[in-house]
């Protein structure tokens, strides 16, 4: 117990007696954690973007009032057999009216549709597997044989198609490159931290030799380095969390603009998951710090 307290004490002393080295190490540590966390959030945004796009990847078809339910169901069944189609849903007049009532219209507009007077057409809501399938589905519903039952301009997909495809490509690209970059940066950061701690320990080579000569056990020598590593991890977590907070605060409005009204509120997400974000970073920080310290110090511990 006395030894443990001493090891902790020496760890703190090491930290504060080399203030510049400690500051540099802490900053490098902070950057690493910041990079890791940033990619996590970037991935979250990309992920959410995909969801938004996927939700927008539907084609709606509306029918003339005189079209028979049989013809509509015939089209629905045939669509259901296409591999490009994820799902098809029939919207009756009543359902269309319900959806209408839920839309953010003023009461005056909402009252234009009532059960007695419902001008809304029946329709099919088709969800595509991916944006590339939109064309196939589009061509299918635009075939001549369906035209008698479909309203004029009753196929809605043309307007969004190009935008969606572009957006989806960008998102895919961001995710792929994001993972790659995150991996590379993580590798580089770990090497930099490892090197910093190693230099730190090399600069205390003589100290370690003396400790050994007065009979310090290996754990008594490496313990303070471990404590120091944990201290770096802790301070870096605080710094990195603050950096992320400000980054998110400034980018949330931009992301909201980009993703539209279905966006995720990163700021809220951050506040809500603050404890988790902190603990995860701290765990990564401690893990990297202690592993790198131990590997570096081990070289000088041979008896």
């Amino acid at each position, binding site marked *: 117990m*006395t*030894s443990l307290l*001493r090891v902790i004490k020496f760890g703190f*002393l*090491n930290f504060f*007696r*080399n203030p510049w080295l400690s500051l540099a190490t802490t900053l490098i540590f902070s950057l690493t954690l910041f990079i890791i966390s940033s990619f996590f959030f970037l991935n979250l945004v990309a992920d959410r973007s995909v969801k938004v796009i996927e939700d927008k990847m539907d084609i709606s078809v509306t029918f003339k009032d005189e079209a028979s339910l049989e013809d509509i169901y015939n089209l629905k069944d045939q669509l259901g057999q296409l591999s490009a189609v994820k799902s098809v849903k029939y919207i009756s007049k009543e359902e269309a009216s319900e959806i209408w009532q839920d839309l953010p219209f003023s009461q005056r507009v909402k009252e234009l549709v009532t059960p007695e007077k419902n001008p809304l057409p029946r329709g099919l809501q088709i969800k595509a597997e991916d944006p590339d399938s939109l064309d196939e589905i589009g061509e299918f519903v635009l075939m001549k044989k369906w035209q008698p039952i479909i309203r004029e301009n009753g196929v809605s997909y043309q307007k969004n198609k190009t935008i969606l495809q572009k957006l989806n490509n960008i998102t895919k690209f961001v995710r792929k490159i994001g993972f790659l970059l995150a991996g590379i940066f993580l590798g580089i950061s770990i090497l930099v931290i490892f090197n910093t701690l190693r230099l730190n320990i090399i600069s205390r080579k*003589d*100290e370690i*030799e*003396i*400790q*050994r*000569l*007065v*009979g*310090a*056990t*290996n754990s*008594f020598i490496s313990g303070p380095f471990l404590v120091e590593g944990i201290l770096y991890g802790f301070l870096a977590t605080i710094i990195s969390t603050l950096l992320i907070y400000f980054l998110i605060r400034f980018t949330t409005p931009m992301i909201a603009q980009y993703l539209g009204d279905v966006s995720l509120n990163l700021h809220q997400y951050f506040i809500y998951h603050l404890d988790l974000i902190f603990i995860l970073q701290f765990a990564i920080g401690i893990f990297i710090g202690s592993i790198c310290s131990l590997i570096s110090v081990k070289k000088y511990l041979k*008896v």
Partner: protein
Amino acid sequence: MIDVQKVSKTYGKIKALSRVSFKIKDGEFVCLVGPSGAGKTTLIRLLIAEEKPTFGRIVVSDRDIHLLPRREIPYYRRKIGIVFQDYKLLLKKNIYENTAYALEVSGARSDLIKKRVPKILEMVGLSKRAQNYPDELSGGEKQRAALARALVHSPKILIADEPTGNLDPKTSWGIIDLLLRINDHGTTVILATHNKDIVNMLRKRVLGIKNGELVIDRLRGEYTI
């Protein structure tokens, strides 16, 4: 008791020690002499289990120290005190902390450390320098601080490797005086030196090493190599 039996040490093709044998009784004061590069430092590194002999055995207190498991070596080192020519003080710790460190390492209780360290610093005459860092001390003071650290845990054996090598004669004798007083209290002292004057005036047992071989072993010896 220290029993060195036919110890040889080679580094590649270089023979640092060749079949060296001697015994040192408890409480003895021994001068280990010889020119630079004769093998004194190699012998000391073997005695403190920093290195293993190529051949032969070194038995200290009935145990072959080179058969000790690695994790027991720190505990062996706590039984000996070591002083070097270049002091080997921890530069980031003040004199009090340097001295206390040898006790802290062994898990000694804090109240014992608080009692023992001021006493030993008083003995070596450094009470007023306790809060200073090694860089603020003169050579003689640094060596006395190193002695304080080597002695604070009351070792059975004190090994001093050229402790006066960097000091002027007057300061050197101050250190020798301390070594003699420590020896009076029953600690075995091994003093490695190539200072003729000191060896000749001490008239203690002399072990002389030359080219890695033990060439002199006299009870009241002089430096004659």
